[in-house]
């Protein structure tokens, strides 16, 4: 159902280097600028980037008769989180996601109950990690990187899916956009991480499978790595700063970051 080694319908040859992949998608004159030194803090997005959102498909299959609706629900929730930021309003991500689920219910003529909203919340709190995640995080930690997360949803240190997956001990801190009441890709979210970690924005590398997140990170002065999971591709526009690393799994991204440490 969800194979991180597939891009679209095409299998990716494991031997293709990430740099080659990155440049293959960029037009002439917009080559990815490689990192020339290792960042000091790696900042991970969580939902979809580390955790497999497709685990929610059965809920959307039951509600809408179409498991793929999970992608529309998540996409609309991100769209409206951005709207909140642009209009200087803030609804906590869980409430917003519930509102978007009810909006989709109205659109499709399907009543959404409080039980359905609760089931969505429970499902989100129990998302499994993508298979490439546990090893990659351990290797990056072992190589001396400081690892943190930055999410739009509430941070759940001591519980939640990262704890359940045995990964939270690898994380120095878990940051949430709720603290600054502005959602990613607002500059304030990345600034909050830099400040709390005693680092400059240029010392942070944001790692996500969402180009919109990395647009904000790059604009704020961070470096960025795009995990090009199934259905993911960079947004390429003249003058738009691209992620320095683009690779199909976190495994390749971790390899490149570890090589930088040894360079």
């Amino acid at each position: 159902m969800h194979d991180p080694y597939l891009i679209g319908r095409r299998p990716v040859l494991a031997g293709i280097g990430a740099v080659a992949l990155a440049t293959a998608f960029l037009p002439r004159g917009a080559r990815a600028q490689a990192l020339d030194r290792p960042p000091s803090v790696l900042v991970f997005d969580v939902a979809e980037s580390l955790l497999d959102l497709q685990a929610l498909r059965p809920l959307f299959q039951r509600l809408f008769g179409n498991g793929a609706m999970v992608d529309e629900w998540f996409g609309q929730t991100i769209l409206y989180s951005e709207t909140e930021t642009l209009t200087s309003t803030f609804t906590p991500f869980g409430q917003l996601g519930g509102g978007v689920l009810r909006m989709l219910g109205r659109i499709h003529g399907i009543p959404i109950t409080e039980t359905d909203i609760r089931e969505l919340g429970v499902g989100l709190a129990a998302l499994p990690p993508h298979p490439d995640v546990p090893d990659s995080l351990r290797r990056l930690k072992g190589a001396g990187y400081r690892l943190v997360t930055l999410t739009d949803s509430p941070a759940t240190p001591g519980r939640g899916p990262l704890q359940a997956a045995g990964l939270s001990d690898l994380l120095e801190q878990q940051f949430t956009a709720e603290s600054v009441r502005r959602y990613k890709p607002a500059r304030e979210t990345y600034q909050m991480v830099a400040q709390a970690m005693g680092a400059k924005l240029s010392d942070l590398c944001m790692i996500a499978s969402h180009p919109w997140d990395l647009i904000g990170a790059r604009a704020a002065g961070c470096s960025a790595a795009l995990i090009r999971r199934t259905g993911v591709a960079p947004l390429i526009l003249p003058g738009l700063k691209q992620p320095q690393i683009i690779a199909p799994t976190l495994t390749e991204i971790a390899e490149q970051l570890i090589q930088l440490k040894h360079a």
Partner: protein
Amino acid sequence: MSNVRNIVFDCNETLLDLATVTPVFQRLFNDPGAMRLWFQELITYSQALTIADVYIPFTDIGGAVLDKIAAARGVDITPADRGELTDRFATMPPYPDVPEGLKRLKAAGFRLFTLTDNTAAISGRQLTHGGIVDCFERRFSVDDTAKRHKPAPEAYAEVTQALGAPPSEMCLVACHTWDTMGAHAAGWQAGLIKRVNNDVLDTAAQPQYVGKDLNAIADQIIAQNGR
């Protein structure tokens, strides 16, 4: 009773039928649903770029999002494909309820305007092709001076400043809740047309007028602001 005098229309999908671009997506991706994904991502990225203080014209973002979806699905697209999308987008016809709804509001004494994320050139082409360009006293584009996409406050402020009108006299009519949220933040009233695949978001500030087409919205605006 409220005091709306100026009605500002969103264009894409509010007045003009977005389904016109579906055949491009059907042909390229064999998936008519890809059109919805494209438009959703177009808005997601126009907002993300605006939050990141990067301004890129709307149709350029639309072309890049088409490229992105094609790359994600392993489909090759050509400049001709991108050109076909822009052409279809620039010649979307009005929905059948639009000409009558506009005429009724105009006859009731309201001043009518447009505010679009498109460039003035694309928007002019759309409304001229649709035969409704003369309904509007003036057309605004975020590309003119705001250089930030809706729902950034600067987009709505561009209109009120140009008209010298207080926000309480303004009403946005759109089919997108993210746009009515922007109007609300600007102190305007808003009407939401529930076009296909659009509805209210109950966690957000609610539009004053909600209806299935422009005539339903026009009835409510005239009843509340009768002049």
